[in-house]
């Protein structure tokens, strides 16, 4: 093999670079984010009615898909009312419906999005609820 020395050194540097995120994070505490559901709007609701649009499990994994469907329905089809699988109706609006209850964007949306290192651009346009800096 020609230039085996150079090739091996090059490969080692390459491996070191691509594995950087792994060893850089070794030993760092990564607590799961605890989402806060204690907003005034949610507190007002009776205990048994403290439910989101769909089940917690579905929302956790599928809220982005739901929001995507909502926006297509509202913007493109003009249908703005969502009837959930539990036969409850909601106004399909991130800004006016979701955030009415979840008025704590920082402790609800951001916490998990930051943890997952995703940056949805919802808030480039949609106005987040006013929050006190905590």
């Amino acid at each position, binding site marked *: 093999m020609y230039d085996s020395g150079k090739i091996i050194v090059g490969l080692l540097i390459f491996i070191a670079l691509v594995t950087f995120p792994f060893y850089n994070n070794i030993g760092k505490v990564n607590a799961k984010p605890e989402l806060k559901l204690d907003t005034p709007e949610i507190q007002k609701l009776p205990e048994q009615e403290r439910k989101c649009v769909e089940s917690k499990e579905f929302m956790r994994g599928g809220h982005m898909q739901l929001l995507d469907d909502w926006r297509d329905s509202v*913007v493109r089809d003009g249908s703005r009312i*969502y*009837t959930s699988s539990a036969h409850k109706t909601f106004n399909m609006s991130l*800004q006016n419906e979701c955030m009415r209850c979840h008025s704590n964007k920082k402790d609800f949306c951001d916490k998990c999005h930051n943890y997952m290192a995703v940056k949805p651009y919802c808030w480039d346009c949609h106005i987040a609820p006013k929050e006190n800096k905590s």
Partner: protein
Amino acid sequence: MSINRREFLRLAGVSALAGVGGVAVFNKLQNNALEASEFTAGPNALNAKRWAMVVDMSKFKTPEDYKRCMDACHSTHNVPNFSNPKDEIKWIWPEKFEHAFPGQENPYMNEETKEKSFLLLCNHCDNPPCVRVCPTKATFKRKDGIVMQDMHRCIGCRFCMAACPFGARSFNYRNPRGKDANGQPLIKEENAAYPTRTIGVVEKCTFCTERLAVGKLPACVEVSNEFSKGGLVFGDLDDPGSEVRKIISAKYTIRRKSEIGTQPSVFYVIGGNDYAIVPEIL
């Protein structure tokens, strides 16, 4: 694979017809457990086959009248005020006759019409060139005739701006949430119920789809009724009994650049009384 229910329903229908694939589909359905969910229009929503507007210029007397309509629109929709023509964004604005109807003016026309400002906005054309050219269907025509802009999808190519014969479209050259040269926010007071836009997308008048959906008239129409009944009239062009149709069939109305065939849905009454008036004999 995304779980889009409408797509799923379409898929389910096809599967049922073909008699295959049912099992796979049902598996998915059980995972999802949202089979009962659906999207509908609200109970108070205003509906039409083709929304249209009549602008009766005789009802606009003072500059204040124009300003109220513009302010109502721009504050409702968080339209930023750049105060320079380069970055300017506007949904509804005034122009003199020769600029609103280029080619229609003549040197001898009466001063009143000549000097009068006309309120311009998106014409929501029946045959919209902007929709024809958009490469992503970000701008599209709804079933009720409204030419809508999907800011989520717009890639900012500005083909629609080149295509619109009415200069109705504005591009977010700068961040609309930013500040002007004096450090003042471009959107003076945000309407928390409506989004802003992001940098790099095209926007325009939407005939207030968000208000029609809850049974309200467009913001400019509502406010115009406060200072004079009938300055801006909104209704279904397809309904012979609608107010817009009654006015259009009784009075002489003109549309901007009607010769190029886009079929604007905004009509202008030029004359000052209730009889049909041809501009030439004014």
